[in-house]
């Protein structure tokens, strides 16, 4: 089947109607989930992940605590119905363990853990649907969940995938494309424009890598804008609700908006 589908056709369209540098739709839902301190459900194309954050709280296992900072604990679970082929992945699946470890080490330098010594922050990542760009979706959703939980971060972490078809770079790959072209994941911190995560597991020439890498860093900025709006919207809604409760009516809504914009 996949051989019948052109990854990039002569008109410059990809198999789902996007052009080379277009990312898929991103929908962010930041509503509270149960008792979690923070949560985010992120739908990126057909990839959907839910991240809930608990903490900072007292560590369950005393032996795991660190005296000078908080411990990040990432647990990842993949729903068996998330792919076309229904398959249960065990928690000890190395791929999942590795991904969880990658998420943990990505956020360790970003979360200001030194503010919470001897405590632990639990991040639970649930993958509900997969269609490519799984790691970026998890990372972006984790950023958002940490933000909603009120955990102090140095910056956003925005991740995106990129691939090279023959000689043309593509951004934000679907599963179909990931199976076909060499690809990589890049996570950037938009304010400093620094890169916190790069992974690539397929063979690619250095020159191609360079080109794609730079492009992906740029795409991170675009994703950041999207995430920023979502956080802003939620905050504005919260502030409005608070205002409505206390004063009834928000006269200086607009100003707050600007203030929020500055901070994020």
């Amino acid at each position, binding site marked *: 089947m996949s051989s019948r589908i052109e990854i990039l056709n002569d008109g410059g369209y990809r198999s*789902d109607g996007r052009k*080379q540098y*277009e990312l898929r*739709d991103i929908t962010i839902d930041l509503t509270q989930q149960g008792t979690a301190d923070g949560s985010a459900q992120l739908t990126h194309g057909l990839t959907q992940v839910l991240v809930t954050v608990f903490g900072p709280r007292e560590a369950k296992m005393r032996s795991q605590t660190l005296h000078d900072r908080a411990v990040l604990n990432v647990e990842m679970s993949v729903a068996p119905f998330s792919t076309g082929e229904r398959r249960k992945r065990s928690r000890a699946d190395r791929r999942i363990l590795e991904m969880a470890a990658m998420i943990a080490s990505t956020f360790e330098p970003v979360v200001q853990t030194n503010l919470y010594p001897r405590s632990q922050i639990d991040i639970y990542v649930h993958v509900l649907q997969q269609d490519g760009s799984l790691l970026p979706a998890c990372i972006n959703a984790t950023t958002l969940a940490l933000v909603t939980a009120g955990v102090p971060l140095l910056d956003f972490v925005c991740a995106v995938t990129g691939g090279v078809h023959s000689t043309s770079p593509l951004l934000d790959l679907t599963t179909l494309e990931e199976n076909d072209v060499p690809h990589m994941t890049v996570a950037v911190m938009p304010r400093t424009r620094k890169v916190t995560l790069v992974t690539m597991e397929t063979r690619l020439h250095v020159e191609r890598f360079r080109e794609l890498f730079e492009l992906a860093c740029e795409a991170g900025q675009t994703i950041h804008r999207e995430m920023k709006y979502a956080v802003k919207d939620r905050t504005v809604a919260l502030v409005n609700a608070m205002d409505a409760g206390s004063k009834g009516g928000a006269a200086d809504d607009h100003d707050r908006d600007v203030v929020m914009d500055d901070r994020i």
Partner: protein
Amino acid sequence: MPEISIRKRPRTEAVVTQRKFFKKTARGKVVKVLRERYLRDDVACGMHSCTLCASSQDAVLPSSGSLDHPSFPSGHFVLPDTNIFLSQMDLMESPKFNPPTIILQTVMEEVRHRSLPLYNRLKALVKADDKNIWVFYNEYRSETAVIREEGESPNDRNDRGIRKATSWYNSHLSLARPPVRGQSRPPLPVVVLMSDDVANRQKAEKEGLSCVSVRKYVEGRKDSNGLLDLLAAAGSDNLDPTPAAAARQALYPDYLPTTTLLAGVKSGRLHQGHFNANQYNYLEGSVPVPGFEKPVLLVGREHMNRAVQGDVVAVEVFDEKDWKAPADEVVDQEATLKNDDADDSEEETDDDEALAEQKMLRAEAVKRAESSKQPTGRVVGIIKRNWRSYVCHIDSTSLTSTNPTSLSQQTVFATPVSRLLPRIRLRTRQAPALVGQKILVTIDRWERTSRYPEGHFVRALGKVQSKEAEQESLLLEFDVPYRPFGKAILDCLPVEGDNWVVPPKNPVDPNWKDREDLRDLIICSIDPPGCQDIDDALHARRLPNGNIEAGVHIADVSHFVHPDTPMDSEAAARGTTVYLVDKRIDMLPALLGTNLCSLRPHVERLAFSVIWELSPDAKIVDVRFTKSVIASKSAFTYEEAQIRKDDPGLSDELTESIRLLNDLARKLREQRMAAGALNLASPEVKIQLDSPESSDPVDVEQKELRETNSLVEEFMLLANISVARKIQETFPQTAVLRRHLPPPRTNFEKLQDILRRRKGMTLDVSSSGALAASLDKCVDPNEPAFNTLVRIMATRCMLSAEYFCSGSVARDTFGHYGLASPIYTHFTSPIRRYADVLAHRQLAAAIGYAPLHASLHSKSHVERVLEVVNKRHRMAQMASRASVEFYVGLALKARSSKATVIEDAYVIRAFRNGLGVFVSRLGIEGLVTFKHEIQFDADNYTITVPAGGQEITISVFDKVKVEVEVEQDKNTQRGRVVMALSQPIDSRSL
């Protein structure tokens, strides 16, 4: 940095944008697949100066449409349905047919799904300069995207999508031109749906769309006559069969449904392979399948079941007791089927011809030898048709009226030039005008009620035997791209044109960057006489340490041909220069081939040099590669170089250099032979042309080989091997290499048997070295030419060499069997072979001269390019062989008009009613047939002919004399070589 954006998708759109389906994986699991698509508003309509679509600068459609169709006075655009491309591709490709056309993505995808060759033609069509074609990605435009409804077949969905797009276009046209107040609105052009599907047209009419069938559309045009013939048979309006036709008796069994075929092939019950027709016997074909060592034999028309040369078919193999040996008789279609009538042959099922066929098969069944049995079977289905356009002649006897002014439609037979194809039934109005011409015909279909396939006329090539027609038909037959180079391609040449020179030495000049200055070296080139594209030159000199420095300098084509330019893609598509006897079809524009890249003497040229340090016994001490600037001191022909070398009076540097090279070449050759390289032979003759203008062949002579030929050859081999090593080392995944696989042993069985029985000789085929040694022993002291003959026959048993990408095959299959080299590539003729250009680029990158273009890092890209080059290479060889044959025919004709031509010949095959002979002086093979009964001993490859009381025995490898003449077929005007035995016995009386 390009603009990066996020495509937003309204939540409500989910129904349209997501698609769920189930598919079965290779492992047999059923998997749910969910896909989405993004609908957009920026898919351009392609009209010039469209006010609504932003990107109209690359639009190709004139804004007012085409005004020259009388039915659509206000201008129109054509929007063809899928079935138009599936059955009327020839019409669409005709240069005369170019209304502004809109091709929908839906149509493109449907064509791609149905037939890849057609899709490729369609893609080429879209890119063609002289067509006004715009591809509209309707599935991605929000207004025109459709989803499959409950209970709707995919076909209906597509039809609906096409109609929706048509109606969108029409409303888009009116929106783009809003009426100006106070002015009457000018009539708008219409977008016309062209479809041969009656149901689709009816629905379209109901929706108020203008639509038309192809035939109606073409008939309505002013220049309809020429185009009507291009219409495929399926294009007639009455698609449902007439009652008479329905009642016709089926001549062939029905094909099994595709699913059954695929399941059968998978389960091993059926076998899949390419159908090969037998060129000696039209009632027999074979299909090599992986399941059996020998190809499956298909005997009789019914068992071949409408398969045409090259089709991929599924065959069912019969029980072993029904297995047979291939026929040892020559059955000529034309002779047997002379009386078949084109118009109504299908109505007489028990006509003479069918009876004759049955008789023939019965007779054969008895006589078939027991020994060489082959599996037999029948075709039960076609997996993929490989029909294309064929060069044919009209069979004049099949004409009902020869009145040249008659415009009535007739059904005639077209006989393909290739003996491997069946006759094609053709309906045309211009039959009388086509008699005596070469024409191009496409097969459209082959009904099971029809003995012959049906086709349609594409175009005429010219008079039979006229050089232009013969040449073009040859090029078409072998699919050689011969169009002139387009402007975009010529624009890639240096602007200085013929006046381009190597600039004065200057290290910062890009032409001189990293180049070595080798202008002082004594370099010369050695080529065949009249060679214009000199792509190699050589030098050699003694070094102070006693070793010898030898260099091969190759034209630096990659300096001029840059990747990803129109010139590069054209060269890649052509793959190779094709040499015909009187014409050369260049791969690169002549300015490069014969001037800027040609290493002409006394001119400074850019080169890519391979320089070795060789020990006196021709062992490589060191090798280096460098881009360079050279100035050749002389351009010799092989003969001149030979004479110079042998002239003891000369001892200048140039002569010494040639002697040195020759000395080394001899040692290199010895080393190569010791390693087991084969010394092969193929019948090569040379056509002597009277003068270049008239190009009338005067005579045929065999090519003469001199020592200097081998000198050049050895160094080219050495260069190719050294380069192959280097690029494979540097780019293990994508290096462009060439290999020659060892032939399977079974290929030699027949030849080994013949040799053993006839001459008592053995052929050891265990390795190339063993084969070379045993070939050397196949000598008949009385017949000096015998050894060459055996070599020619052995060569035919081998596989052909091919280009490949180093990452796509296992490392242990890199070897070149014929050259006995573990690794090989083509580097030395970049002017005329595209693979060499790629090798140049890779070598340049390997030595750090220039970065490697990204496409050469992509394994799939290299594979794709090499696949084309391999095909072109094969076709080019066949084309040049055919060209030689044509001229041999002309020469023979000229000679036989003066006196009977009698030539020595060797028997190479024996049939029950004839002999296959090889005339080495002419390099042609022919057939001697006997009309009367003769005795045939299949086991000993011998026939016995009764001649006036005594009996004469002729066996394979016997030397005979044959009379050769060219006979013109009365019906088809096709000239063909006819041979008759004149010694030891005159066969014409038999």
